C-alpha cells in the first residue's frame, strides 16, 4: 500500500478505504503539540498528560467535561475534614500482565516529587498529603488542612506499578521499557519529533477503544496539519486554525468536532499602582491610574463588543464570557451574563469617573499563545479608542511576554498596565481561576500566583479561602458562586470569551470534544 500511496494518487483514497478491515483499525493522527516525555510524572503540562491519559490511568479519571469518574478507584469519600478513603478497583492488570493494587498507588505518589530534572513537577498535587495503605484495595489520604480538591488533585497523578516506580528513569519510559500502564492503549514506540505509536490494550478494564493501532505524528504548523488531513495522510487532527474552519466545514469528506474549553480569555488591569507605567493622560503626561476606579473598568467592559470579536476575529469559534468558566462547571454562577455592548453607557461611566475625554493606554498581549491572540488585542484597542480611551497595542512572543507580564517590573512586580491573557482551569472547577487570578498575591499562602493586576479584596480573599477549606460539596459550590459574583462584580478581571477547540477528521470519525483540550484516542469513534 505504501507503494500505491506514492505512485497512484487516485488509487490511494480507494486503497485506504478498502485496506482497513474491521478487525485491524488504525487511526492516524496529526497533532499540533508533542509531549516532552512519556514518563507520566516528569512534566506537568497539557501534551504530556494527554499522552499519559491513553497509556495510564489515574485513581480518578476526568471525563470530557472534566467531571470526576471512577478510574483505578471505584469510589472515594471524605471520612472527616482531613481524611479521604479511596476504594481501589480489583482485577486490573498492567500491560505486562502484572496485577494492580494499593502498593502501586503508594509507590507512584512516592515517585512523583522525586523525578530528576522535572521541569514542572506533579508534586503540586501530592504535597501536604500523606498516603497510607489500609488493605490491598483501600488507601487513606490524610491532608495537612481540610482540602476538598483532594480527588481533583489525585485525578492528575498517573499510576505506575511499584516495580516501575522504584527503579525506572524518565529515559526508561521514553524508550518504552517502563511505559507500562493500565490504560486503554499500550505503548509501542516513540521517536521524538517524528512519531508515537500506540496499540490497543485488549485487557483494558473499561470500554475498549475502537482502534487497534494509533499512530501520532507531530505537525506543528497549522496549515501543514490541515493539508495532511486533506491529503489523507492522517485521519484526525487537533487545533484546527480558525481561518480554515469555514472551508473544512464545507468539505463533504470531512467532519468537525467542536466544544468549549475550560479556557477563558480575559483582561487583567492594574489595580495596584497609582501611577501605572502604561496609562497616560491624553497629552502624554502622567495621570492618576483610572483603572482603579470600578466605573472605568465597567466602561471598558461595556465598550468591548464580545459578539463582534467572536464573530469576526474568532470566526464564530468562541463563546462570549461573563465569568471565569463556561456554564456546566462546578462553582459557576447562574446569575452572570456577558456584559452587553454599550458604548454610550461606557462614555457616560467615563464622564462620571471624571475622565470624560478618556486617557491613553497600552494593551499588551502574546501573539503565539492563544487562538488569534494578537488580533483580539487589536480589536479591543479599536473598540476602546472609539469611546475615547486611546489604546495602542503591543504584542510579544510568549517566550518574552509572560515573564514581563508576571514579574518584569521592579521587585518582580507585573510590568504592564493592561494585559490580555487566558486561563485554563486544570481542576475543572471555579476555585482554580479564583484563587490564581483574583485572590490577593500572597506568596506564603501560595495564592494569587497569577494575579497580574495585583487585585486585592479582603472580603473576596476570605470567601475564596473558606471555599478552599470546605469539604462539603454543596456549601463549597455556594461559596465559589458567591466569590465569582464578587470578583466579576468588581471586575477584578474582565472576561472576554471562552475558547472553543476544534478537531477535524475524515468523514465518519467523531470525537467528543474535551474541555481540557486533550486528544484522547479512546474517545475517537468511527461510527461504522
Amino acid at each position: 500500500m505504501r507503494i500505491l500511496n506514492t505512485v497512484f494518487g487516485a488509487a490511494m483514497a480507494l486503497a485506504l478505504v478498502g485496506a482497513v478491515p474491521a478487525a485491524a483499525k488504525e487511526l492516524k493522527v496529526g497533532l499540533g503539540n508533542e509531549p516532552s516525555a512519556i514518563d507520566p510524572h516528569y512534566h506537568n503540562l497539557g501534551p504530556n498528560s494527554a499522552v499519559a491519559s491513553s497509556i495510564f490511568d489515574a485513581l480518578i479519571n476526568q471525563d470530557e467535561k472534566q467531571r470526576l469518574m471512577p478510574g483505578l478507584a471505584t469510589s472515594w469519600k471524605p471520612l472527616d475534614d482531613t481524611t479521604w478513603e479511596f476504594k481501589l478497583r480489583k482485577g486490573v492488570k498492567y500491560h505486562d500482565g502484572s496485577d494492580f493494587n494499593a502498593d502501586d498507588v503508594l509507590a507512584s505518589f512516592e515517585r512523583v516529587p522525586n523525578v530528576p530534572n522535572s521541569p514542572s513537577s506533579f508534586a503540586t498535587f501530592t504535597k501536604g498529603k500523606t498516603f497510607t495503605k489500609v488493605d490491598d484495595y483501600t488507601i487513606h489520604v490524610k491532608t495537612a488542612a481540610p482540602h476538598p480538591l483532594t480527588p481533583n488533585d489525585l485525578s492528575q497523578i498517573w499510576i505506575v506499578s511499584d516495580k516501575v516506580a522504584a527503579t525506572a528513569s524518565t529515559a526508561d519510559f521514553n524508550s518504552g521499557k517502563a511505559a507500562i500502564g493500565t490504560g486503554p492503549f499500550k505503548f509501542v514506540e516513540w521517536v521524538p519529533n517524528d512519531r508515537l505509536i500506540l496499540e490497543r490494550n485488549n485487557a483494558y478494564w473499561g470500554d475498549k477503544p475502537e482502534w487497534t493501532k494509533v499512530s501520532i505524528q507531530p505537525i506543528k504548523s497549522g496549515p501543514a496539519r490541515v493539508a495532511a488531513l486533506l491529503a489523507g495522510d492522517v485521519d484526525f487532527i487537533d487545533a484546527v486554525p480558525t481561518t480554515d474552519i469555514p472551508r473544512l466545514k464545507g468539505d463533504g469528506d470531512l467532519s468537525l468536532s467542536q466544544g468549549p474549553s475550560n479556557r477563558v480569555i480575559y483582561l487583567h488591569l492594574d489595580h495596584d499602582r497609582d501611577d501605572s507605567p502604561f496609562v497616560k493622560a491624553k497629552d502624554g503626561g502622567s495621570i492618576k491610574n483610572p483603572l482603579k476606579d470600578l466605573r472605568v473598568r465597567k466602561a471598558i467592559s461595556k465598550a468591548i463588543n464580545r459578539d463582534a470579536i467572536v464573530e469576526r476575529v474568532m470566526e464564530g469559534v468562541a463563546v462570549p464570557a461573563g465569568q471565569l468558566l463556561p456554564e456546566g462547571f462546578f462553582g459557576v454562577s447562574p446569575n452572570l451574563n456577558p456584559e452587553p455592548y454599550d458604548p454610550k453607557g461606557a462614555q457616560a461611566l467615563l464622564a462620571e469617573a471624571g475622565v470624560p475625554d478618556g486617557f491613553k493606554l497600552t494593551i499588551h498581549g502574546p501573539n503565539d499563545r492563544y487562538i488569534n491572540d494578537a488580533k483580539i488585542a487589536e480589536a479591543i484597542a479599536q473598540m476602546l479608542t472609539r469611546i475615547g480611551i486611546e489604546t495602542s497595542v503591543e504584542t510579544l512572543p510568549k517566550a518574552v511576554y509572560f515573564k514581563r507580564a508576571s514579574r518584569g517590573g521592579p521587585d518582580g512586580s507585573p510590568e504592564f498596565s493592561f494585559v490580555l491573557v487566558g486561563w485554563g482551569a486544570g481542576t475543572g472547577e471555579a476555585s482554580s481561576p479564583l484563587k490564581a487570578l483574583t485572590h490577593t498575591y500572597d506568596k506564603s499562602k501560595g495564592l494569587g500566583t497569577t494575579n497580574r493586576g495585583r487585585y486585592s479584596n479582603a472580603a473576596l480573599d476570605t470567601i475564596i479561602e473558606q471555599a478552599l477549606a470546605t469539604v462539603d460539596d454543596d456549601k463549597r459550590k455556594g461559596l465559589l458562586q458567591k466569590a465569582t459574583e464578587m470578583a466579576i462584580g468588581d471586575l477584578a478581571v474582565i472576561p472576554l470569551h471562552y475558547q472553543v477547540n476544534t478537531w477535524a477528521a475524515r468523514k465518519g470519525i467523531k470525537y467528543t470534544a474535551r474541555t481540557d483540550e486533550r486528544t484522547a484516542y479512546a474517545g475517537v469513534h468511527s461510527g461504522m
Partner: protein
Amino acid sequence: MSVFVIRRLMQSIAVVAVMSFIVFFGIHIVGDPVDMLINPEADQADIEAAMHALGLDRPAHEQYWYFLVNAFKGDLGRSFIFGEPALQLIVQRMPATLELAFAALFLSVLIGIPLGVYSGLHPDTLASKTIMSGSILGFSLPTFWVGLMMIMVFAVILGWLPSTGRGETVPLFGIPVSFLTLDGLSHLLMPAVNLALFKMSLVTRLARAGTREVVHQDYIKFARAKGLSPRRVVLVHVLKNIMIPVVTVIGLEFGGLIAFSVVTESVFAWPGMGKLIIESIQNLDRPVIVAYLMITVLMFVTINLVVDVLYSVLDPRVRLQDIRA
C-alpha cells in the same frame, strides 16, 4: 607556516569564546524559561522550586561559569524540556537534516547545471528565457509559501505525494535514512525540491554565466577547430571550466542550506535539527539553543580555518600578508 596556523587557531578559539559569551548572555536576556515550562496551576513555591532545580535562581555569570566548565568536559547542558543532554538531542536529529540538505544539494546540481549550460549555449531561445525567468521566481518566492503550495497541489489535489513527515526509514551504518525506501523517497522529494529551489536558481545562473564566458575562450575555439564533437566540447571542456565557481559557491552555501532548512522542516514536519531549534526558541529551551549555536559556530570556524590554511598552502602571498599585518 606553523606560526601562521597557530595564529589562525588562536583566532578561532577567541571567536568561539566570544561567541559563547554573546550567545549565552544574549539568550539570558530573553524571557524566563520557567514561564514556558511550568504548569500555570503551580503556586509560587513550586515556581521557585523549579527555578532552583534548573539553576535559574543563580546569577547569569555563575550560570555561564558552570556552562564553560561543563563545556570543556564536552557537556553542553541538559534540555530544560526533555531533560536529556542537549548535544544528544541535536545529534539525534542531525541525520534527518543532513539527508534533506544533501538531497537538496544533489537536486540543485542535477537540475541547475544542465539548465544553466543549456541557456548559456543558446541564450536567445524561448526555452532559455523561460529558464532565466523561472530562476528569478526560484530566488524570490518565499520557501514557506512554495512549500504549502506544493503540499496543496501534489498532496491534497493530486494526491501523488505524502504531505508531511519522514516516512519509513532504514538504518545505514546505524543511522536512519529515508532515501533507501520508496516510501521514504516519496516523503523526501517535496521537502528536498522545496529546499533546493533557491540553490537550483543560483546554480543555474552561475552555470549560465560561466558557460557564456567559457564558450568564447580560445581553448574552446581550438577544441572546435580540432574537430571534437560538440557533445565532447560541452561535456568535457565547458563543463570542467564552469565547475570551479559552481563548486566554490555550493561549498560555501551548504551551511546556508542547513540553516534554510528550518522553514522547510517546519512546513513539512520533517524531524530535523531546524524544527528542534525553532521549537527550542519558542519554548526558551536555553541549553538546546546555546548548544545548537555553539555547534554551528564551531562548524563555521572549523571550515574557515581549513579554508584559510588551504589558501596559505596554495598561495604564499596570504601568509606573507598576514605576517606583515
